[in-house]
């Protein structure tokens, strides 16, 4: 099953349950009027676009309507699709790569957003592309976090560099960088502990991990990926902003897009921050990851 089908079927499941989906508010051939625009706004809100973004998009639709560019409900979908998709140019979605030596990818996010699972999925994804992958278990804080990543490394068949629980995550990162270079790994994926963006000391700790990596491997980290939970609401924007203030966030992984939430927050985030979405998580299994494709995302969002 391709991403599109997967997304569509995942979204389709809830589609039936949600009273007002785009399908029902935008019946074919309905003439555009303010009531219809209100319905579009409400639907966007229910998809977690947030009031500011929904306002902006509906305004754009209204302008096009007033200008006579669009007239009927189905035009709205086409119009919005173009509008939203244009925000994520393809070039921004590739993973950065080191010129020589290991490419270091730091993975961060709030508690339970899906970091460790995403690290495992990425490891599997990259390994399948023929890359030699190693994992760094820098979550030394949460109970059994090291064990969790160890189990994933076993299932993927990739190396893991770890210390005991309670160890200094900076020290783990340090060792992991040395090991990655020594073992000639192509990719080093660094899992970190979940932390709320409001916990200043923990955010500084994350920054310290980044600095350790920077020192050990010139040009690293090549990517800092922020894992966001697709079910989260407007707070995700604050998360993205705060993490960006402490580490050089270069991309987003939108996890749990297989749930009943539609992940509309990333549209709002794109509105306010220049951080591209790189991957989406679509389940708990190792294969449940896909590169982000805005066409498909928007398509699925508006799918009937």
């Amino acid at each position, binding site marked *: 099953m391709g991403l599109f089908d997967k997304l569509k079927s995942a979204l389709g499941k809830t589609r039936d349950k949600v009273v007002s989906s785009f399908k029902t508010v935008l019946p074919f051939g309905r003439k555009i009027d303010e009531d219809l625009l209100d319905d579009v706004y409400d639907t966007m809100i229910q998809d977690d676009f947030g009031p500011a973004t929904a306002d902006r998009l509906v305004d754009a639709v209204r302008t096009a309507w007033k200008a006579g560019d669009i007239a009927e409900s189905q035009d709205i979908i086409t119009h919005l699709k173009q509008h939203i998709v244009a925000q994520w140019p393809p070039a921004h979605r590739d993973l950065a790569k080191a010129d020589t030596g290991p490419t270091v990818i730091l993975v961060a996010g709030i*508690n339970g957003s899906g970091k460790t699972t995403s690290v495992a999925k990425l490891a599997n994804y990259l390994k399948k592309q023929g890359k030699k992958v190693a994992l760094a278990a820098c979550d030394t804080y949460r109970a059994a976090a090291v064990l969790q990543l160890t189990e994933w490394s076993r299932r993927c068949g990739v190396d893991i560099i770890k210390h005991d629980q309670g160890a200094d995550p900076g020290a783990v990162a340090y060792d992991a960088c040395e090991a990655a270079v020594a073992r000639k790994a192509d990719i080093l994926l660094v899992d970190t502990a979940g932390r709320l963006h409001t916990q200043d000391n923990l955010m500084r700790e994350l920054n310290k991990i980044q600095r350790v990596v920077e020192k050990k491997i010139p040009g690293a980290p090549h990517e800092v990926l922020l894992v966001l939970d697709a079910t989260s609401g407007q707070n995700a924007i604050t998360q993205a902003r705060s993490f960006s203030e402490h580490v050089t966030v270069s991309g987003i992984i939108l996890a749990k897009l297989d749930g009943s939430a539609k992940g509309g927050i990333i549209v709002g985030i794109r509105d306010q921050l220049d951080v591209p979405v790189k991957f989406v998580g679509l389940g708990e299994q190792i294969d449940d990851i896909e590169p982000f494709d805005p066409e498909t995302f928007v398509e699925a969002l508006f799918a009937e």
Partner: protein
Amino acid sequence: MFDALTDRLNDVFRNMRGRGKITEDNVREVMRDVRTALLEADVHLDVVKSFVKEVTDKALGAEVVKTLHPEQVMVKIVNDELINLMGPIDSRIPWVAGGPTIILMAGLQGSGKTTTCAKLAKYCLDRDKKSMLVAADLKRPAAIDQLEVLGEQLGVPVHAERGHKNAVKVCRNGVGIAQKKLIDVVILDTAGRLSIDDELMTEIANVSRAVSPHQIYLVLDAMTGQDAVNTAKNFNERLELDGVILTKFDSDTRGGAILSVKSIVHKPIKFIGVGEKLDRLDEFHPDRMASRILGMGDIVSLVEQAQQQVDVEEAAKLEAKMKKGDLSLDDFVKQMDKVMGGRSLKDMLKMIPGVGGMMRDTDMKIDEGEITRMKAIVSSMTPKEKTDPKLLNASRRRRIARGSGADVEDVSGLCKQFIQARDMMKAMAGMGMRDRMKFGTQFAQQSMAGGKMPSFKAKTKPKFKPGRKDRRKARKRRSR
């Protein structure tokens, strides 16, 4: 966490204050802003709509136009509605007599179930209840280990069956062991699942059928967006929830989910998780949460008090007097006694929105003895002196001091204070909220620097500090 919403509402009401009276148009305009603020806070759209309608109706129905400060009455209406939306709630766990109380925990992936299970075990521990944790998350790698580590930290037994695939069996066995071991509370940790995952939802429904839990709690991330309501609805359909526990409340989330869940799913928020440590589980109190949302200090109780004690007409008269600046010492003392009785100036100033935070370190007390002394001083004045304290020369002051048994200094201090306060009130009567806040702080600083004064004294060590009994007395009097 609610800061941003608070700021928004503050802005909204500040703007409103500038306009003086509340009209239907005002209310609708204000409510449009409130609506956006609530949506930004992730309150569910349906809830926002009905909330806005409810408040608008109430505001238009109430006699807000006549009152002293219409925006304060609006705040109170919004506040009451918020409390309505979230409560009433009994956050205690109804323990079962003579057998283990069985608690089933359910929720989406990553919502914080395992940690919350351990927090509940700690909660039991603190109440001298023997608890046991059951590791029924058989899906996520190392989930069992995680619960075992937490159990060990607490010294609470964990029932786990490694290599098992059947969560129903594990739970049933766990409960059986708990019964034999005379455990008071069994807490079942389950795997995270999507509410639209039929297979896994059936599994947890089967667990529920097999062990008949006394309490079923949904663990929900406080940062969840509009989907919170769908999730809660779906879980409730399959499990008949007894309550919801919201986690990660120590973040800066505005926590709209809290507003939505109760009003749509009709299930109470039982606890909120406010930190990663195992003792960071708080009982949920709607009233506290509402004032936290509004973040407007004690303004609500100020309005309540003012409504009880100063009727609308009198308030209007007073407001007019304040504006003209011809408040008399009689009015002054009467008002102080009514509104402030037993309260410190700090408390009083805290009631002015926005001032609370700035007032933290000052300790200015006005005690009951002083109110009595002030009354005595004022009653020794002639009617003319009461309205125009500038008449009070040295000899008049000595006379009043003798007549009231106070020091001459006290008399002078009261007069000075009164003139200051009268000017302040006159100025404040025509001010917007922001200016009032500034003014309030300036005033407080002035009073602090003002040296010996009978009232509004700035003290590092108050002469008389109300003990707990006094405070209770004061509270009782206020609530009457």
